[in-house]
């Protein structure tokens, strides 16, 4: 991701008085040409009735700058991102150092962890479509 352009865009939202609505991460499972999977991170900003999303695709280990200097509430989302997904967020205003959730599984939502759980269930991805059709009978 282009960090400078991203931070400039976030800063514009901040200056225009938008508030941070949600930062959401989705894991993209490992696939051809993307062995470690990836993360789709979207930062959503709201102003009155409007909501806009900034989306970036980052690879595991890639540095994601924190926006907690402009949006104070971001630190909670960012700690969560790091703890549950293993996203490498840098420069958080309040770094909880992995003490937020303390899950039994390390980074349970990381692409590799999801892959491992799906494999244990014996499910390839995507799930075969005929299976769903058969259930309707």
């Amino acid at each position: 991701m282009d960090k400078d352009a991203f931070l400039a865009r976030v800063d514009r939202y901040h200056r225009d008085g938008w508030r941070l609505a949600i930062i959401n991460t989705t894991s993209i499972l490992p696939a051809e040409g993307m062995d470690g999977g990836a993360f789709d991170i979207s930062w959503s900003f709201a102003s009155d009735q409007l909501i806009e999303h900034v989306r970036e695709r980052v690879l595991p280990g890639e540095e994601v700058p924190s926006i907690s200097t402009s949006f104070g509430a971001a630190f909670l989302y960012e700690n969560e991102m790091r703890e549950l997904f293993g996203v490498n967020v840098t420069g958080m205003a309040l770094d909880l150092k992995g003490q937020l959730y303390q899950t039994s599984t390390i980074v349970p939502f990381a692409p590799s962890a999801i892959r491992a759980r799906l494999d244990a269930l014996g499910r390839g991805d995507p799930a075969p479509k005929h299976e769903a059709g058969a259930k309707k009978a």
Partner: protein
Amino acid sequence: MKRTVVPMGPQHPVLPEPIVLDLVLEDEKVVDAIPTIGYIHRGLEALVERVEYTEFGYVVERICGICSFMHGMGYAVAMEEIMAVEVPERARWLRLIWAEMSRIHSHLLWLGLGADAFGFENLFMHCWRTREEVLDIFEKTTGGRIIFSVNRIGGVRRDISDTELAAIVEKLQQLGAGFAATARIFETDPSIRHRLSGVGILSREDAHAVDAVGPMARASGIRMDTRLTGTHLYDRLDFEPVLETAGDCLARVVVRVREISQSIDLIRQAVDRMPKAEGAPIEVKVRGLPTGEVFERLEQPRGEVIYYIKANGTKYLERFRARTPTFANIPAMIKLVKGCDLADVPNIIMTIDPCISCTER
């Protein structure tokens, strides 16, 4: 000055649910607070891998036992958007009515817990006694007291007859009239004023800076309410959010007290304006597999909730995410706790109306 760290929680008399705050004290003043959660973390969002999208709504409902209706509704609405389902109008009205009833029940519950936190047990009992009447209506119409399982993708599972609706409005208005006396106590009792007035002030600017939502933001004078977007039929009702400007604990109590009467009025309006169409369809059959993604916003009793759903054309969703109002209000809580007296911490924590099981999912 010597600094002391006092861990508060996970089991603490004022906290109904486990959360830990490491309070850094200088004498009696709190200078810092570090939150730790995770005692209720279940990993609910990862259950999308195991529960099919048709049944996942029942998992979503169990994010929280207080706003369970809203969670079920949010999931259903979001899935309907992904699958481009046109929901029968009657189902949408019924959802609105149940949603506003959830608000009444949640606020009454919170007012009780809040009263208990500032040492007014008598009021706690009063609020919960009133709340039981709302629960009775819920049980009669949905079959459950706390978890309703009444939402389904494509509509709702149960209808309420028109006579029943009229009876509900009448019952709620009686409840509102009876509650007015209790409401007056909250607003005027000198002991409550002493305890809450001027405590934990969140200014308008701060509320904006920490992205507070719901009654928390409205008590600081921010006109913010997802119902204003007019989705979920709120555009057909006359609605103006309850605002207070003081931003202290008392303002947050008063906002919730007044929102109870507002919700009763919204239900009355809804019953007046919905078509009298008993027996009209309340559900459409949903077939096929969902593809796409959606962000869905809803105003819960505690504030704005956002659902994100990504579906990839299989019967299992790829990602489900709920950003619950308490999650958004925790930065505000930390902001408020810093600089207050240790004895005020329980009140401040309570007035954000924390729902930890929502926060941790």
